[in-house]
């Protein structure tokens, strides 16, 4: 496995390189010696049983764990040659580059337009007509424009769950990130909305590096190019998705995929 990780680095100059990452919440050792190289412009899925630390791992990449008191992290996460775990890292700038969509759609209780405009305003990327254009572009990218173009002033809570989640994606795309983190984005959605979202994820990967956390292995199989299997805070396996699903290298991965636990 170590060979593969090195190999990936050579062939694709990993977008996100995680080295020997350990994380504790207080005395609870949540992530253990995780090393993984996430390739650019592809979808990488992180799967594993509930509570295995996969969301925590994802939240390391944009430093959202900073919000939790008594978090201790060792190791390195290198994005574009910079170790983002260091305290000097500009977290604001990092989160602009690394966008995130959460498990439960969390639009702001404002208008649809304001939701998307929020990030653009905060980063002073545009205003006036330029702002309108950017909002439109982000909504188009998230395949939401046709559904909302006549009701941009409506409250975002008037949208359906699937639309809200695509709105959250548009909100994140509006600040032009390079990496998008998706934390079980479809777990609160119905099958139809899930299918639309997955289709969207696959389209976005030609421009973005996407990391998606999911406990749904069919979803991982459908959308991802690479797949990491995490259990009890340890990285069990990381490889191309077809390889993991057809010929897993570890008994535990096989058991998980076979539905022995989940």
């Amino acid at each position, binding site marked *: 496995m170590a060979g593969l990780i090195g190999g990936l680095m050579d062939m694709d100059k990993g977008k996100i390189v995680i080295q020997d990452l350990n994380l504790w919440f207080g005395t609870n050792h949540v992530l253990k010696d995780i090393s993984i190289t996430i390739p650019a412009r592809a979808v990488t899925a992180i799967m594993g049983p509930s509570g295995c630390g996969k969301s925590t791992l994802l939240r390391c990449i944009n430093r*959202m764990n900073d*919000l939790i008191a008594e978090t201790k992290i060792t190791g390195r996460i290198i994005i574009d040659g910079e170790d983002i775990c260091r305290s000097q890292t500009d977290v604001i700038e990092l*989160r602009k580059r690394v*966008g995130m969509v959460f498990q439960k759609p*969390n639009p*702001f209780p404002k208008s649809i337009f304001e939701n998307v405009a*929020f990030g653009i305003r905060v980063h002073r990327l545009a205003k006036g007509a330029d702002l309108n254009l950017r909002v439109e572009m982000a909504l188009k990218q998230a395949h939401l424009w046709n559904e909302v173009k006549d009701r941009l002033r409506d409250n975002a809570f008037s949208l359906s769950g699937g639309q809200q989640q695509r709105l959250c994606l548009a909100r994140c795309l509006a600040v032009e990130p390079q990496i998008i983190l998706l934390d079980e984005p479809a777990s609160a959605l119905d099958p139809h909305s899930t299918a639309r979202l997955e289709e969207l994820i696959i389209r976005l990967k030609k421009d973005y590096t996407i990391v998606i956390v999911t406990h749904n292995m069919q979803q991982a199989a459908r959308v991802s190019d690479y797949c990491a299997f995490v259990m009890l805070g340890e990285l069990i396996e990381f490889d191309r998705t077809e390889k993991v699903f057809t010929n897993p290298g570890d008994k535990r991965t096989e058991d998980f995929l076979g539905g022995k636990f989940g």
Partner: protein
Amino acid sequence: MFYYLFSNGVNVLSWKFLTQPPSQGMTAGGILPCIIGTVYIAFISLIFSIPVGVLAGIYLAEYAPENLLFRIIRSSIRSLAGIPSIVYGLFGVALLVRGINFGPSVLASGLTLGLMNLPWIVATAEEAIRAIPGSFREGALAIGATKWEAIRHNVLPFAFPGILTGILLALARTMGETAPILFTGVTYFTRELPRTPLHKFMALPYHLFALATQHDQIMKVRPMAFGTALILLIAVLCFDAVAFIIRLRIATANKWQV
């Protein structure tokens, strides 16, 4: 009780009652100076307690670390909200009237009431802010907003109705309090309206107290006392009602709390 007050007090209510000072040894005339005095001190108390209270609430809800020190501070603030108002009155005498030497005045009374309000406003502001779901902050932080931007744009606007309700309830309480102003500036009778904040003043609750118990012709001033009580009660109820309506509207408007 309201019916009793209303039936006894409604007869003296008139435009004159609201717009004229008392005359003929308080047996006639109106209560204008008391209304002005009450509005004046309520205004001063809020000028002091709203900015300090709301900022303290924001700090406690968003910035203060969760440790023993702040647990003690939080529970102290809640106990301060329960201290009898007469204690604030005496504190006001010691600190403002004597210590800073404002003398018995609108300023000293207003600030005493402000101190009394303060813990109440801090506590309601803190709770209103805490009631806003963490996902709003997270969503804003995750696209690179600073902590203050997240609070400013995605927490405070939604906490505002809750904070306002707390302020209105505090205001209603302020207007009805007698004890904190008793020693700090209210007066039984003055011919002049308080021209500056350092003058003494008349106020509704104390006027009522004086008419009901301190006057030598109690039967003659009784209608005036009922009228005063009715006005005070109506004013307080108005603020409570506005607060109630706001609360009701948040309950229906808060779609995120489903």
